[in-house]
């Protein structure tokens, strides 16, 4: 506050000058006088400080319409009138040229709709797991094993780890464990019934969890308390949806529940939790307590087996990186200790290469690429891809707008000239055209929001989401409005300055023709549009080819006509009889029992293998060990390349093992059959199966072994008859004899296989959609441009026709220029597309080749569409009656 008046007693000068600035002349002096009088009165009564404040308060009180400067208003009325005029002129030119207007607005609206949808998608993706009470202190632990350039990451830990972490480190407030692996005892899916009913229902979404896990996540409860819902042994927390289904209108806490018809171990409902929101990576309807649970003797204290995911709540202010290094003490004592006790040779390597890592819970969903876990994850790359595509579509739409505005400039040139002659400054014209483009933008946003609303269900299907348009959120409408104005101004800038720069004398003399000055700029933009479109077409083609390649690749087994019957484990030993009966059905070729399937997400069992007797000297080779029966390979169509299959009922086969080719080459066996290997017990190799893909084609085929076992929860049935319906019916009647209380659940192997590649399919669909959108937008622009050129050169064409030019000559004249532009785009797009798609394919170990046909086809398509678009107007022009455009002169 400056006090530079000679009278030291006065109120703050800045307040006075502020008042002077806004107050009108009518009141200014009189009110200021009043306020000063009041000030002096207060000054003597209450002192300077208080008087100053009250003076400022008085000034603020006069910030009302009645006291504001009127001079401003008189200026305003002129501006307002001009704006009214701008809008009127804009409206007139919109209405006069319906085609251009609808193309401008339609293209814009398409781009905006795409942008809105994708922004909502991205918002949803980014919102995952950021709503927990102590979210910034909750971390998920994972393992990292880096050796020889290969990094392996996974989330499972041995049972005692969480307890040790919590006991040894004060930074850890709580540590909670989760077993999310389907097939691990009761995790995954189960038959479910209330204790007082007999009919079982198949339910999914089971996981084992600690009481401390729900404490950490602060899961809100409908019935029961978060603090003790899982505290008792054999308690289970169910979601509200489940409670509503099985216990409508009652409090289920304390009620018994039977899983898989096992009445010997009943569960008890410990609480009902709110359903997990859509945007969390944890999606479970049933949490079974880990309290007092030991899956086998000594399991809870053993470091043998890695099955538990761990979540931490840390002390405020803990540095997770620092804690990570501290955690390594646990690795060196407990884990290495365990290995050394067993004489395992990997102890040294573990010390060197094995690390415990912490990941904030909010990052689990988007940033878990490369971390093996089976919780729902997204991909930050997808977010970028979607975002990029949306941006480009909007950009294309903006370019259309700019192109059309400058192309149509000739029609506005006279108006610009006239306005300048009667006294417009350049700034006024710029303002006019910006207002106009903002108007366009606002209308386009309106249409775009409508389109987005209509397109939402389709988009949800496309991206496999369930989004809605947040009409009622406070920020939604203002954001849209703000973006509309911003986009309108950005898209209008170039045309505004271009148009307002016309010299009135040139324009009015008529020497400026057809807005040709900016034709180079326009060409560049057309090239840009088509380059983008062609890249998207190439991307679409290659993604589809990769998809086809995956679905049709020789994968080492026969996925066609195989029915997988699930939930057979409840039959116990009777499953063998079921299998024999199914195999003897007409139209059934073969049947096998095994829960291990060449589809990711089914049962897996990783094991270390050594040559027999070398477990203390050699490094272990990790390999799957699958329990299969003697019909397994026959049913799934796997090929034995050496040795023999298991023989049913042969006692000696209990220590026989069949290995795949990857296993053989990992061990370097010359004659694998007859070699002896061991994991916990010794086996003799009796056969070698040809490599088959049992995980996604993104990775290479890992070593795998099969041992004999006639148990499992899945019965696979190979159907030979072509009448699948009839065979299914007979399979079902057999099943119903065996398990009358349990509806048959089945799936088809080929469908499950295709589901493994859903992300590729999603990507393919996204690319197709947006490639189509981009092409539509680009073509709209091209169409309008060509129509405009035809209109401009109407007289020229007429004269040519009169002088004897043939239709073809006219056609060539009009199209050649555009086709040249499309060719240039092709030259740019092909290398770009090749490069981008090559890097995408590098993610896949097994991939299709990029061949020249892809580019030829994409090029032809783009060219064809462009020619079709242009020729519509060109043909019309070449066949018109020249009199029509000449007679008026």
């Amino acid at each position, binding site marked *: 506050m400056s006090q530079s008046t000679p009278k030291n007693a006065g109120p703050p000068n800045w307040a006075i000058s502020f008042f002077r600035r806004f107050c009108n002349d009518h009141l200014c002096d009189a009110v200021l*006088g009043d306020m000063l009088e009041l000030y002096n009165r207060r000054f003597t009564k209450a002192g300077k400080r208080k008087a100053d404040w009250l003076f400022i308060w008085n000034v603020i009180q006069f910030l009302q319409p009645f006291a504001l400067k009127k001079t401003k208003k008189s200026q305003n009325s002129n501006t307002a009138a001009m704006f009214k005029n701008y809008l009127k002129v804009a409206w007139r030119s919109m209405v006069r040229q319906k085609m251009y207007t609808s193309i401008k607005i339609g293209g814009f609206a398409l781009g905006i709709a795409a942008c809105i949808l994708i922004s909502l998608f991205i918002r949803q993706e980014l919102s995952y797991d950021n709503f927990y009470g102590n979210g910034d202190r909750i971390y998920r632990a994972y393992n990292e094993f880096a050796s020889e350039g290969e990094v392996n990451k996974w989330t499972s830990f041995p049972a005692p780890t969480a307890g040790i972490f919590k006991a040894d480190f004060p930074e850890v407030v709580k540590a909670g464990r989760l077993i999310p692996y389907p097939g691990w005892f009761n995790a995954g899916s189960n038959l479910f019934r209330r204790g007082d009913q007999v009919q079982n229902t198949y339910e999914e979404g089971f996981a084992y969890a600690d009481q401390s896990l729900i404490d950490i996540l602060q899961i809100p409860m409908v019935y029961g308390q978060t603090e003790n819902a899982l505290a008792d042994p054999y308690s289970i927390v169910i979601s509200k949806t489940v409670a509503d289904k099985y216990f409508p209108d009652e409090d289920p806490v304390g009620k018994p529940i039977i899983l898989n018809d096992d009445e010997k171990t009943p569960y008890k409902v410990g609480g009902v939790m709110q359903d997990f929101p859509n945007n969390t990576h944890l999606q479970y309807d049933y949490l079974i307590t880990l309290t007092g649970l030991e899956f086998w003797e000594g399991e809870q204290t053993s470091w043998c087996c890695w099955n538990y995911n761990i979540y931490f709540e840390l002390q405020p202010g803990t540095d997770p990186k620092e804690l990570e290094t501290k955690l390594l003490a646990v690795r060196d004592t407990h884990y290495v200790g365990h290995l050394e006790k067993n004489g395992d040779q990997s102890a040294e390597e573990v010390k060197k290469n094995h690390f415990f890592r912490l990941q904030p819970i909010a990052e689990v969903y988007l940033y878990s690429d490369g971390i093996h876990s089976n919780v729902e994850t997204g991909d930050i790359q997808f977010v970028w891809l979607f975002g990029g595509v949306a941006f480009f579509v909007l950009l294309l739409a903006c370019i259309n707008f700019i192109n059309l505005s400058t192309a149509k400039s000739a029609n506005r040139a006279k108006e610009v000239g006239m306005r300048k002659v009667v006294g417009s400054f350049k700034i006024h014209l710029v303002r006019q055209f910006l207002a106009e483009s903002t108007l366009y933008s606002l209308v386009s946003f309106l249409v775009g929001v409508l389109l987005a609303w209509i397109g939402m269900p389709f988009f949800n299907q496309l991206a496999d989401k369930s989004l809605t348009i947040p009409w009622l959120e406070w920020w939604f409408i203002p954001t849209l409005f703000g973006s509309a104005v911003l986009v309108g101004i950005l898209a209008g800038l170039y045309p505004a300055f271009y148009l307002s720069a016309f010299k009135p004398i040139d324009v009015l003399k008529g020497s400026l023709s057809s807005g040709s000055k900016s034709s180079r700029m326009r060409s560049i933009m057309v090239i840009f549009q088509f380059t983008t479109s062609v890249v998207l077409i190439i991307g679409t083609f290659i993604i589809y080819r990769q998809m086809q390649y995956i679905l049709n690749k020789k994968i080492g087994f026969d996925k066609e006509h195989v029915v997988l019957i699930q939930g057979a484990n409840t039959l116990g030993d009777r499953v063998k009889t079921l299998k024999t009966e199914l195999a003897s059905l007409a139209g059934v070729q073969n049947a096998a029992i095994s829960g291990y399937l060449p589809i990711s997400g089914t049962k897996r069992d990783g094991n270390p293998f050594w040559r027999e007797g070398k477990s203390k000297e050699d490094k272990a080779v990790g390999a799957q060990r699958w329990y299969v029966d003697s019909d397994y390979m026959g049913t799934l169509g796997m090929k034995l390349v050496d040795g023999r299959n298991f023989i049913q009922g042969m006692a000696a086969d209990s220590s026989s093992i069949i290995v795949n080719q990857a296993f053989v080459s990992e061990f370097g066996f010359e004659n694998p059959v007859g070699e002896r290997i061991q994991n916990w017990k010794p086996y003799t190799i009796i056969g070698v199966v040809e490599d088959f893909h049992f995980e996604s084609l993104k990775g290479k085929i890992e070593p795998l072994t099969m041992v004999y076992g006639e148990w499992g929860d899945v019965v696979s049935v190979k159907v030979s008859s072509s009448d699948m319906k009839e065979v299914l019916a007979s399979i079902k009647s057999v099943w119903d004899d065996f398990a009358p209380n349990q509806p048959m659940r089945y799936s088809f192997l080929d469908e499950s296989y295709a589901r493994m590649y859903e992300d590729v399919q999603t990507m393919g669909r996204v690319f197709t959609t947006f490639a189509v959108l981009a092409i539509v937008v680009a073509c709209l622009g091209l169409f309008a441009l060509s129509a405009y050129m035809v209109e401009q050169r109407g007289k020229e064409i007429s004269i040519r026709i009169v002088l004897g030019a043939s239709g073809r000559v006219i056609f060539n004249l009009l199209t050649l220029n555009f086709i040249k532009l499309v060719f240039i785009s092709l030259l740019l797009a092909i290398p770009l597309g090749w490069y981008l798609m090559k890097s995408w394919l590098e993610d896949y170990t097994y991939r299709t080749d990029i061949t020249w046909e892809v580019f030829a086809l994409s090029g032809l398509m783009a060219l064809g569409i462009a020619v079709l678009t242009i020729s519509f107007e060109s043909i019309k022009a070449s066949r018109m009656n020249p009199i029509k455009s000449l007679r008026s002169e």
Partner: protein
Amino acid sequence: MKGTYLGEFEELVLLTVGILYDDAYGLAIVDELEKQTGRNVMLSSAHKALVRLEDKGYLKSKMGGATESRGGREKRLYELTHAGAKVLEQSKELRNAMWNQVPKIVWEGNSL
């Protein structure tokens, strides 16, 4: 101009201008109003009402009467116009007429 409706506060301001007669300016009106009604009146609301009343044609104003304590600034002195006087009179008559129509019993009842 704007409607001729006279608000309660506006009526009070008009009357105050009448009371003060030749020294009716913003701050004096505020003081007088506070004295007469016991309400707290903001300087800005008084000025707002004055501007409105002038717009409606009930007041006219001129500048004059600068003093030392005002930093030498003149006051805007207000004066009732003919229309202003008339509207006050109408208002008073309306009230009187309505008063007279209220049965006596009401007042007596109330005083119980």
